[in-house]
Structure formats: structure tokens, C-alpha cells
């Protein structure tokens, strides 16, 4: 077990380093750079010579490998560098933006799980075939709608037509309602699809028949036996969905005018603000690695069959 743990942690570190290196190389290949974009603005009226001076002052032009080692060393000591565009340390912009996105993502994921559970249970519990079929079709619909379009429609309908939630200058919780909904809808789709498939699979297992034979009702079988077994495989895609959440956050934050990691990322790409992008990659890679590590390590604890297989 300890060996397995160490191996998994080692692999996670390798993935982190690889993500850092790959993104560093990718970002270095971009055509322009943040300094140029910021100071070439015609409003500033700087001459090419002045811009060249500024460039040199920012330390651009060092050999690639030394920039790489420099950046890596800084990251290991927790120094994320300075955002050229905003003129503030990257750590500060992260501190200002990360909590908002984490809240949005966490609530979005929670809402997605609830939505997925609701859809898959109802479709299994209902006696009406038509309702069962239309509920089963919902996830496909959810995943077919572009998130930004959904967001704009939600704003139009719920804020401007029905006037239920303001989008301009809303309260701290009001501001989350529509974005969380927009984010949760597409995320819930794969969850619901997996849940439905798992519920179907578990229902055919012998122990369900045994439980039914012992006189348990359909509801209680579903709750006591099927749900725990169906939820388990769902856990595994949580890690993969994290990336979806971040992409969703970029779009929802843009549509709803929220501050967060998403808008930060988008602006950083537009301005080719390397330090910010590098930090975003490292943070999301870390989150991805941690979630997957947690899922990997928790799974045997939750599912005795895998633990046995592991022991063998």
C-alpha cells in the first residue's frame, strides 16, 4: 500500500513537471509578448527604440534554458513572477481571483451532481415510459447547448424578462445563481449518463434480486443498494470534469461579467502574459493531479472488490 502510494505521488510529480515544461515551451513559441502588446499601444506614442529599452529592462532576451530554470526555481519557491499587463505580482492576481472561481466551480459541480442524480433517479423511478424516455434524453440535450449561448439566454429570460435576478451589481449570492446554473447544465450531462448506465448495470446484479426477494421495495433497493454502487464509478470522472469546469468558468465568467481565474486566463492569453498563464497551468495541473490522486487512493477504500484485487 505504501509503495503504491509513493509510486502514485511520484507519477503525479512527474506529470506536474511535464505540464510545467510543456506549457513553458508552448508559451515561449507565441509570436508576440506581453511587453510589446502593452507598450506598442499607439495611445502611448513610444518609439521603437524606447520599446526596445523597456524590453531589455524586463530581462527578455536571456537564453531559453536559463529563463526556464529561472522560472522553475521561482515556481518551486512559490514566486509566480509579475504580470506585465497588470503590473502586479501574479500571486496577488491569483489571490484576488482564485476564490471566486473555486466557489463558482464547487457550486457548479455540486449543482451538476444534484441535477444528475435527480434526472437519473426520476427516470428510473417513474412508471411512465414517456417521462422516462424524455428524462433519459435530457443529458444529451444538456450537453448539446453551447454554454455561452445558454448563459446569454438565462440572462435574457431570468434577469431581463422575468426580472428575478439582477446581473448588474447583484448581491454576493445572487450573482452566483445564473452562472452556477449555466455551468452545471453541461457538467451534469456526462454525470447523469454514467449514473443511468450504472444504475441499469447494478439493477441486474444478483444482490438486487436477492434484496427484492427479501421483500425490499423498489425505492429502498434503489437507495440502499443501487445508489452507493452506482455513485462509485461516477467519482472517477470527477477528475476529468475539473478541466471542463475551468473551461466552463472562462465562458461563464465572460458572459456574466464575473471576476475569476477564467477571465484572468482569457485576458492573459489575449495579452500573452506568460507569467499568468504559466501560473494558471501549474495551479490547474496541481488541482487535476490532486483530485485524481485522491480518487485513486479513495477508490479501494470505498469499493472492497478493488481493494481485494489490489491485495492479490
Amino acid at each position, binding site marked *: 500500500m505504501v509503495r503504491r502510494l509513493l509510486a502514485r505521488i511520484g507519477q503525479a510529480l512527474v506529470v506536474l513537471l511535464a505540464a510545467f515544461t510543456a506549457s513553458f515551451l508552448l508559451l515561449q513559441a507565441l509570436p508576440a509578448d506581453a511587453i510589446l502588446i502593452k507598450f506598442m499601444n499607439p495611445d502611448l506614442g513610444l518609439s521603437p527604440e524606447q520599446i526596445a529599452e523597456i524590453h531589455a529592462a524586463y530581462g527578455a532576451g536571456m537564453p531559453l534554458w536559463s529563463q526556464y530554470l529561472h522560472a522553475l526555481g521561482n515556481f518551486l519557491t512559490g514566486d509566480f513572477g509579475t504580470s506585465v499587463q497588470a503590473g502586479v505580482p501574479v500571486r496577488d492576481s491569483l489571490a484576488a481571483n482564485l476564490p471566486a472561481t473555486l466557489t463558482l466551480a464547487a457550486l457548479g459541480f455540486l449543482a451538476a451532481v444534484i441535477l444528475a442524480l435527480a434526472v437519473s433517479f426520476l427516470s428510473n423511478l417513474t412508471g411512465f415510459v414517456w417521462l422516462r424516455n424524455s428524462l433519459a434524453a435530457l443529458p444529451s440535450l444538456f450537453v448539446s447547448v453551447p454554454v455561452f449561448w445558454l448563459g446569454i439566454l438565462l440572462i435574457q429570460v431570468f434577469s431581463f424578462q422575468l426580472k428575478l435576478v439582477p446581473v448588474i*451589481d447583484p448581491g454576493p449570492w445572487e450573482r452566483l445563481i445564473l452562472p452556477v446554473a449555466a455551468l452545471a447544465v453541461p457538467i451534469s450531462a456526462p454525470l447523469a449518463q454514467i449514473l443511468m448506465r450504472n444504475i441499469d448495470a447494478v439493477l441486474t446484479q444478483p444482490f438486487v434480486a436477492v434484496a427484492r426477494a427479501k421483500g425490499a421495495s423498489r425505492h429502498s433497493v434503489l437507495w440502499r443498494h443501487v445508489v452507493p454502487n452506482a455513485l462509485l464509478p461516477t467519482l472517477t470522472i470527477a477528475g476529468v470534469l475539473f478541466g471542463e469546469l475551468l473551461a466552463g468558468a472562462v465562458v461563464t465568467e465572460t458572459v456574466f461579467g464575473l471576476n475569476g481565474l477564467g477571465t484572468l486566463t482569457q485576458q492573459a492569453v489575449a495579452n*500573452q502574459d506568460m507569467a499568468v498563464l504559466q501560473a494558471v497551468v501549474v495551479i490547474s495541473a496541481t488541482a487535476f493531479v490532486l483530485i485524481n490522486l485522491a480518487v485513486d487512493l479513495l477508490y479501494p477504500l470505498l469499493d472492497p472488490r478493488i481493494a481485494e484485487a489490489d491485495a492479490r
Partner: protein
Amino acid sequence: MTRDEASRRWGGDAATRRAALGAVAAVLAAFVAVPASAAEEPVTGGTLVYLEQQAHTNLYPPAGGFYPNGGILNQITDKLTYQNPKTLEIEPWIAKSWTVDADATAYTFEIREGVTFSDGTPVDAAAVAKNFDTFGLGNKDLKLPVSEAINNYARSAVLGPLTVRFHFTKPSPGFLQATSVIGSGLVAPKTLALPFDQLGDATRIVGSGPFVIVRETLGREIQFAARKDYAWGPPQSSHGGRAYLDGIKLIVTPEDSVRIGALLAGQAHIIRQIQAYDEREVEAKGFPISAPSTRGVNNSIAFRPDNPLVADLRVRRALTLATDTREIVDTLYSEHYPRATSVIAATATGYRDLSAKLAPDAVAARRLLDEAGWRVGPDGIRRKDGRELALTAYESLPQPQNKDMLQLVAQQWAKVGVKLSVLAGDSGSRTLDMLDPLKTGVAPVMVGRADPDVIKSQFYPKNRDALLQKGGSSTKVQAFVDERLNGLFDAIAGEPDRAKRLQLVGEVQEYLLDQAYVIPIFEEPQAFAASPLVKGLAFEAVGRPSFYGTWLTRP
């Protein structure tokens, strides 16, 4: 804001709203009977919710040319002089009087007493001198650039606690007007001691204006509060004291549909950049639209003659003839966007009506292209020596419906056999390509300023360099330079006699169109839409909003 206030402001829940409807109708009926004058009494208090299309970039006052920057600076800074937006005359403000020597090489200003920056330091001769030394000469160490509004600046001299004189190396007749522009907003010396980088942080900009910035969420939201001790509004304004509003909440809302929807749903008081296609609906619902002219260089397409495809005057002339500005304005814009009749707007100083040079004529355009040796190829695109007559332009995001405008121009040019590709592009590639005449043979341009110098701002190689001349902003330019044009600009910037100066301004407009360096399309306004609750909305001479005299009928 408490929950109670919030629900009142946003109309509350459906039940309350239904109940309130009857009451509102009754009140409205009562209001109709009230004479207009009674309703015009300004109310003090309230926070104005202002939706801005783009986030500001930098609040170094000379960067105020960018609309979002100017919209913020105009609330927090005062200017030495005040340009009356109606007459365009220069009137006293922070300077109570001034003298100009005969050849416009020295200006002396007497500064009003008792004016302070919001940090308490006085607005005195030394502070004003520090401001213009920085704007006129720049500061290399702090990366602060020279203001495009100020020409031939030499030095300042503090003659007394409230008397300051500015000296110029050559005549600088535009300087008096330059002291009134958004780019000459007075800021505290400590603000000017900061490097350029840090001036993006709005909370660090200390001005003497009617509002101060109390909080900022970078790129998203700025909160202004009125200065209670403000007592030096422009003498021409209706009141000299504090602003009527308690505060302003500026929220960056890039989505067009959200800005419009929020305004109509009562979630915002005023929005900047309402697109022409939304005007009819907004006005029909009783929301007034203001579209002050920016009185500068018209929204235009500029050529980069260093690009061999457009180096030939006949090609540039042909493309000017192929462009039908009437169709563009009728299709995409409204009466707030008048067709261009010269390089600068009809409301701009020194304007000369050159509409005869801008009449579309596709037949003449084709003839000129034929003469220039460009033959129509099998795909309908003209060719010469195996090269296609194909140009590329990048969309300019701040200009209204620029992408659609360029596409329409592309359709018109296609009729005479010229291909125009419109690119969106990320800002990095755009920044690089815009400096390369081979990659961008044409570019959308526009700049607003109510002084003849504005043309120089747009085209002079040391300023915005719209034509990309050698020795200007780009190192990619091989040869193109127009000494005659630059000479005209130098002459305008240094001609102290007003009549002669305006004569030169007329000449430069003619020259730009005779050389077909630029195709003017329309006179660009800054379009705002406001809630009926908003009164006393004012704009400075080139269309930046001033909320000093603004008040809300129901704060």
C-alpha cells in the same frame, strides 16, 4: 446595500411588483401634470450605475484618448481651462486667467485659489508645472510618454505661488486648447512620481475632480464617491459646489446584449456604446440616447503606402471611389453617425467640406485600376505580375460595429475586383501585424480631439503614425515617407496666427484626400443611452461623459 434597498431598486419580487403597478400608474399620471420646471430641480444623492463597454488600460492622463480611460479621468480630474462644448471656445477653469505672447512661445496662467487634490495637497503653480513638464517632455525613467496634445514644449517656470509660465522651443498655438483636453487632467505630483506600470491602478490616481475613486476591482468595477468639499466646478456649469450624485458605480460589461438589457430592465442608469441597431428599440421605450460627436479625425480606413499594392496613387484613389459611405451609414448606423465629408468631422475646428472628393464612382474606380495595370483574373480578383490585389485589415474593437463595417467595405471593393480580408486576431498578432505594412495594407483609424492638431495626432510619424512612415513607430517600413505631409503638420503645430493655421488645416485635409491616403467613412459619436431617471448629463468637447452635474430623479 441592504436587502430591502436592493429589492426596492430591482423592482422586488413579482407579487410586490404587481401590487406596485397600479400605484406607479397613478403616480405617473400625476407626474404628467407637473410642469417641466418643477421636475428639473436637481436632487442630491444616489449612486449612478454606469456600464462601460471596455476596461480601462491606464490612467496616466495623456492616455485619456482611449474612451474608457477618458471616461474615468473626466470624473476625477480638472483641467486648467474649459473648452465649451457648444462654442469650442476656451474658458477659465482651474486657471482663472492667462496670457499668451505674440508668437505663442510662452503661456502664463493664473491659478484659482483654494483648489486642492483629493489627498489635501494644493493645486498650485508648482503642481501644475510638474504636470505639464511631465506631459510635455515625458519621463523616461518612469516610462511616462509625451502627450500627443502638446507640441514643442520646452520648460515651465513658477513665477509665484499661483502663477506659472510655460515656454516652447517653437510657436505652439494648440497649447491653450491642449490645457483643456482629457489628456491634460491635473493630477497630484505624487501620482506623477509613479512609474507608468502602476498608473493602471485607479485608486492611485489622485486628482482634484468632483469625484474620487474609493474602490476598484481591476478590469471589472470602479466605485467613485463625490468629494464633499469640491467647490471649483467650471464657472459655466450651473453649480460650483459638490456633485449632485453621492457616487458612481462603473461596471465593465463587454456584452452588448447585457448592457442594453440591463438598462431596459432598470438595472443600470447609463450605458456607453449602444449600437445603432438597438437605438430604435431603446428610444421607443423612452430611454434617451446621447451621441456627442468626438469632433476629430473621422472613422476612416487608412492606407499604408509602404505596401507595394497600395503604393500607387491610382489604386488608392480607385478604392476611395469604390467605397460607398452612404450605403455603409444607411446599413449599419443611424442619424447619430453622419457620413464623412472630409478627413475630420464637420463639427471639428478647421473643417473643410470635401464631399466632392468622396463621391462613390465604381466605373471610374475600375478604369483607374485598369490604368494602373491591374487586370481582372478568372476569379474576379485583379492581378498584376502574378500578384493578387488582396489586402488585409484587422478589426478595431473599440470602434462601433467595425467588423461589420469592414465586411461591407470588402463587399464594395469586391465589386471592382479587390479583395479585402477582415481579421479579428488576438491582440498579440494584431499588435505585430499592424506595424507591418505588408501584412496590413489598410487599417481602420479614428481619433477625437477638438483642435486642428488632431490630424497630426493621427498621421504624424512621431504620434499615431496611421500611414506607417519610415522613422515612425514601425521598424518594418522600407521607404515610405511623405515630407510634404509632415511639413504641413509641423507648420500647423507651430503657426501662431489662427487664420493662417486654419488655412493650413484645410490644406492638409485636401492633401490627404488628393493623395488618397485615407478613406473617411463616418463622423464617429460616442453613443450613450440613459434611463429616464438620469438628468443633467453632460459631455466634454469630444464626447467623454461628465457626471458632475448629473442627478437622479429618484436617487
